[in-house]
């Protein structure tokens, strides 16, 4: 009998907890609480390219009105996930235009995407440069070079730059994410890698950066757009404004991006 009573209490408790959790957020969302309210944060889900990780995370600390939930991954992966569930994110930011075009062709985004930053590819080596690599030249012969796969923006950029320079890339690995390239260089597993200047910057003093001649002609342009099926278009627009506004530009520059 006592056990039964306890069970009953537990059921009531769970029910209370459930309703308690469910009702308050529903009310302000329905009444469209103003963005400026310091108490109610507007939730927004952002899918962003892996190379935006550090900059976007810092940006989140400068947006008191937004409760930003990020997913960082390779651009093709993000588009694929959005394709599978179009309302899973409110904003999509890719590291190149072809991937954004895929999303736009599949009618996953609203309106025209905005280019908010550009990025250039650089050669990175472990800080003590054990392979004595000097650039895309003979110093790489017999050394372990890691690049991104051709379908990933940093891989496409690496190939174009090498092609323009008349150098044939012979990587030991083609990674799916630019952060994996950086990881293999910082761990010393690879002698060199081709990543974006921003990735080199966020790796700090664990890597040394070598500029690639002609890289400035192969900039990767970062577009961002509100998704077509966004359930929180207001918050999504606020996030876009944050990135393209003064705060966003300052943070992006600090993390090695160039501005369009």
């Amino acid at each position: 009998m006592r056990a039964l009573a306890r069970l009953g209490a537990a059921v009531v408790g769970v029910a209370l907890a459930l309703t308690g959790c469910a009702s308050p957020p529903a009310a302000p969302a329905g009444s469209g609480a103003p963005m400026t309210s310091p108490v109610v944060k507007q939730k927004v889900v952002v899918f962003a390219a892996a190379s935006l990780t550090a900059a976007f995370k810092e940006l989140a600390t400068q947006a008191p009105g937004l409760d930003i939930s990020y997913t960082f991954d390779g651009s093709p992966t993000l588009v694929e996930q959005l394709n599978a569930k179009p309302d899973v994110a409110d904003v999509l930011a890719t590291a190149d235009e072809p991937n954004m075009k895929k999303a736009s062709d599949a009618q996953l985004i609203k309106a025209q995407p905005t280019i908010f930053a550009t990025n250039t590819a650089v050669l990175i080596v472990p800080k003590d440069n054990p392979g004595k690599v000097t650039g895309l030249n003979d110093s790489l012969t017999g050394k372990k070079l890691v690049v991104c796969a051709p379908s990933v923006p940093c891989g496409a950029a690496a190939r174009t730059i090498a092609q323009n320079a008349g150098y044939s890339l012979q990587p030991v690995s083609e990674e799916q994410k630019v952060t994996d390239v950086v990881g293999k260089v910082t761990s010393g597993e690879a002698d060199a890698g081709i990543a974006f200047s921003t990735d080199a910057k966020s790796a700090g003093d664990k890597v040394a950066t070598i500029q690639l001649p002609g890289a400035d002609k192969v900039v990767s342009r970062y577009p961002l757009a509100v998704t077509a099926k966004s359930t929180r278009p207001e918050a999504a627009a606020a996030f876009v404004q944050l990135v393209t506004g003064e705060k966003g530009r300052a943070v992006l520059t600090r993390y090695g991006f160039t501005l369009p």
Partner: protein
Amino acid sequence: MTAGAGHVPGWIRLPAAVAVLFLLVPLVGVAVRVPWAQAPSLLATPEARDALWLSLVTCLAATGVSLVLGLPLAVALARSHGRLAGAIRTLVTIPMVLPPVVAGLALLITFGRRGVVGATLSAWGIEVGFTTVAVVIAQVFVSMPFLITSVEGALRAAGGAYEEVAATLGASPMYTLRRVTLPLMLPAVASGAALAFARALGEFGATITFAGSLQGTTRTLPLEIYQVRELDTDSALALSLVLILVAALTVGLSGWVSRRTVRRGAA
């Protein structure tokens, strides 16, 4: 199976059916979505062929290594009772349940260029990172425990009575191992090796963390699927089907072998 069926309450069939559907529908889903007409040409691309071949070669090598090193350990564990044996038994199963990325990181800091073992190897001019050997190492690490536990379990269940009899009849330890223990555990070896092979075939996380991804060298079937899945869903599905079929075949074979053993044991 049929003899016990009457003792099972009827309601149990509902969750059981849900379990079957939950496990099978995704597999059937792949089979339905596979572009059957183009499957042969999708699987004949150089990338797909390289991945298939590399997976086959590395998994066979990994299973071979698991047999050579894992069998002796299984025999030793099955015939030991000490606390140390118990500890080892627990420890060697850890890679079975380790998240793949953790396995990859562990291997990287061990066999990587700056790793404990890797740094020494590197000084001798041997570097395993980004090579096919790294793929095999990753596969052995995650698959050998399956062989060990399966063989050890079978030996333990069989008990040591036959060996004791052989010993009292004057057989040497080597003779006993060769003529008594090995024949006893052969079916378990077959099914354990099949399980290890299947696990090696599916190995992904440790490979991508530790070995990298390059066509013909380190890009095994799962890595190739990961690579093409967003560009070319059809190829990814066709390759997935191959993996599912091989895995099903391997596990089916292992099940058939153990059932045969049970029947023989009962007779």
